[in-house]
């Protein structure tokens, strides 16, 4: 059957199982939008193309499927850049489709022309400019295959307007994708397996570092079995939270810059690190020269370029984590590591003593308390989508994730403005789940226009703004490292409740601790999107903190005396 390029695109998207596309129309993508009318696909109209990519990203992370974002050429495409870079850094499978000026106009500085494949080359896993309609079907199939396999990531397809209009015989490429230079696979050399097993079974103080790869690979059960069989504690990266139940006795929680002190202590004292689907990011290691000095290291990752990139390892295994763990599991011996676990518990007690949860807050509202109360009110069952900054770290510390895929956050790129659109995407991916968007007052304003998207598309997300009137995390650095010279961090904010009202979104303001849980409960009953503006302490700190580049054990701890004094008052 002869179809236009635009029709072929939709035919192919349907065959990839696409039900939902986030996008924003414009001149160069018009033929595709017009053809959309004839296909059973839901289109979610965002208010800015960055939001379309974040929403597709949130959709992908919540569902495990490929998210799709669509935009026009030029500014539509360049607006996607931040979203694409975010997806790239966090290995999120997103396919972006952009319109382009007609092929004959390419290179002539035509209206709304941008070299988007050139611009996105370093921030996509791969990208395509389709200049012949006969290549379109195969290209779409390849794009989805590349986006979701191996180490997932964003793929962009740029389609000139004339290619969308051109007609050709549509033959869907039924054969599996065969790319000469792209063959993700798991090969474990027997000597590596043997060496890994030897290191694992002889370790006295091992720690598992469980990352995002556990979730991407679906290796949660294998991870748990591995940890339980070997009695090995599990520390998690930010993006790994949820890959191991927070309440599990072997769960240590988040490691790194804002990880609890005992977690980092355990890593620094470990004699073996088992890095599963993580990449030794600088936020995780601190100073690499002094990182885990006593530990042998085994690194399992799907991306060979991650092995020995930041941290030299003793054994590097390239492959799908689930398959690798299945290979390793039968060889893991139940070793008595009670002395090591007791030691960690001792460190953990010291952390507990300093925990802000032990303190009533002195009549003030603290961000960490708000997050903890949201966790209590939602019984730890919500999908939480966070923005970037202090609230993001408090969430990681105080919302204890029991289930996988319940924390969605911009880790690698640290993209402010991520939460609201990504939350919309997550809720649309999993409509039966309760989705909370938690954002700071700074980041929220970067993409707050997407409130209209939530209303127009009737996406019942719950939004919590942790409002301290500052760019809190930057202010914290200024307090610690720039003698409190608060350059450009104080914010004069709109009244977020009035803002919500302008969108017909019910909103609540909370200023006192005792109001938190009742208000959260009220918000949960609202039919449709809802917003709570939590006015929290302005100059609060995320403790503990490893200053950038410092040794992992050189943490700035919460001053215990302060709280003891406050408590005794």
């Amino acid at each position: 059957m002869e179809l236009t390029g635009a029709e072929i695109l939709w035919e192919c998207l349907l065959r990839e199982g696409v039900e939902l596309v986030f996008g924003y129309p414009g001149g160069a993508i018009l033929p595709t939008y017009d053809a959309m009318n004839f296909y059973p696909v839901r289109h979610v109209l965002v208010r800015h193309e960055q939001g379309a990519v974040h929403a597709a990203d949130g959709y992908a992370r919540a569902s495990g499927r490929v998210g799709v974002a669509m935009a026009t050429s030029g500014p539509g495409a360049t607006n996607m850049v931040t979203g694409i870079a975010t997806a790239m850094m966090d290995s999120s499978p997103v396919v972006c489709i952009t319109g382009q000026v007609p092929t004959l106009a390419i290179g002539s500085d035509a209206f709304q022309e941008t070299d988007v494949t050139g611009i996105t080359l370093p921030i996509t896993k791969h990208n395509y400019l389709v200049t012949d309609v006969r290549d379109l079907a195969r290209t779409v199939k390849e794009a989805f295959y590349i986006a979701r396999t191996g180490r997932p990531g964003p793929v962009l397809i740029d389609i000139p307007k004339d290619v969308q209009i051109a007609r050709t015989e549509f033959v869907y490429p039924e054969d599996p994708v065969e790319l000469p230079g792209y063959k993700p696979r798991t090969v474990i050399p027997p000597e590596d397996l043997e060496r890994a097993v030897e290191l694992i079974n002889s370790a006295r103080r091992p720690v598992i570092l469980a990352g995002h790869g556990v979730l991407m690979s679906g290796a949660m059960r294998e991870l748990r079995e591995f940890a339980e069989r070997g009695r090995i504690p599990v520390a998690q990266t930010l993006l790994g939270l949820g890959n191991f139940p927070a309440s599990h006795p072997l769960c240590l929680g988040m490691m790194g810059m804002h990880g609890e002190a005992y977690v980092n202590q355990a890593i620094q004292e470990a004699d073996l690190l088992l890095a599963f689907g993580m990449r030794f990011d600088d936020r995780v290691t601190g100073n690499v020269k002094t990182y885990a000095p006593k530990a042998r290291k085994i690194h399992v990752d799907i991306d060979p370029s991650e092995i020995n990139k930041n941290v030299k390892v003793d054994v590097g295994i390239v492959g799908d984590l689930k398959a690798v763990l299945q290979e390793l599991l039968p060889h893991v011996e139940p070793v008595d590591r009670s002395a090591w676990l007791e030691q960690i518990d001792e460190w953990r007690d010291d952390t507990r003593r300093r925990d802000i949860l032990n303190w009533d807050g002195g009549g003030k509202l603290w961000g960490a308390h708000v997050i903890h109360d949201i966790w209590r009110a939602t019984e730890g069952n919500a999908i939480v989508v966070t923005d970037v900054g202090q609230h993001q770290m408090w969430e990681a510390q105080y919302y204890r994730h029991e289930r996988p895929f319940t924390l969605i956050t911009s880790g690698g790129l640290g993209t402010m403005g991520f939460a609201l659109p990504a939350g919309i995407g997550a809720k649309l991916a999993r409509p039966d789940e309760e989705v909370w968007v938690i954002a700071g007052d700074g980041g929220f304003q970067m993409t707050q226009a997407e409130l209209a998207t939530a209303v127009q598309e009737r996406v019942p997300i719950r939004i919590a703004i942790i409002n301290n009137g500052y760019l809190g995390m930057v202010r914290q650095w200024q307090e610690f490292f720039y003698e409190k010279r608060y350059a450009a961090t104080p914010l004069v904010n709109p009244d977020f409740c009035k803002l919500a009202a302008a969108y017909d979104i019910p909103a609540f303001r909370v200023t006192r601790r005792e109001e938190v849980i009742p208000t959260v409960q009220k918000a949960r009953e609202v039919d449709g999107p809802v917003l709570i503006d939590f006015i929290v302490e302005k100059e609060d700190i995320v403790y503990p903190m490893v200053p950038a580049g410092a040794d992992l054990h050189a943490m700035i701890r919460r001053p215990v005396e302060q709280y003891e004094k406050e408590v005794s008052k």
Partner: protein
Amino acid sequence: MKHVLVARVENKPGVLNRVASLFRRRGFNIDSLTVGETEVPEVSRMTIVVDATRTDASRVVHNLYKLVNVIEVEDITEKPAVVRDLVLIKVKADAKTRPEIIQLTQVFRGHVVDVAPESLIVELTGEEDKINSFVDVMRPFGIIEMVRTGIVAMVRGTSVNGHGRVGGNGSVL
């Protein structure tokens, strides 16, 4: 230590740009990069020389593999290989110095490919060291212009890239 990498890549528009962009954004230091056709029309071949004192060659290999259009990468540094660089040198030459330059060119088994009243162009092919010494020898005469291709390399013997994997009818790999 110089590492010689041979990459077989898809012969498609923009692939060289992808490779160059990778080197730039990862901060890889490259001495030379050549690209050209192969026995298979759909495949181009790049020879990349990495200064391993500044850049870990295995990181370059792993990152090249991340590019979807890169089919195969081989570090042939330790393999017996034919390695060639080509240079064109335009050197000052008058009636007095011309015979000496031509003689030196013959010693290096180069060719004089252009003769003008006040200059000569010499073409020379060989391993990098040989080219370097020839350039040193020419320098006193006055080098007006010089261009080098950067090296191309091929593993000796019947194997493809030292793999022993040979396919027929263009079905290599």
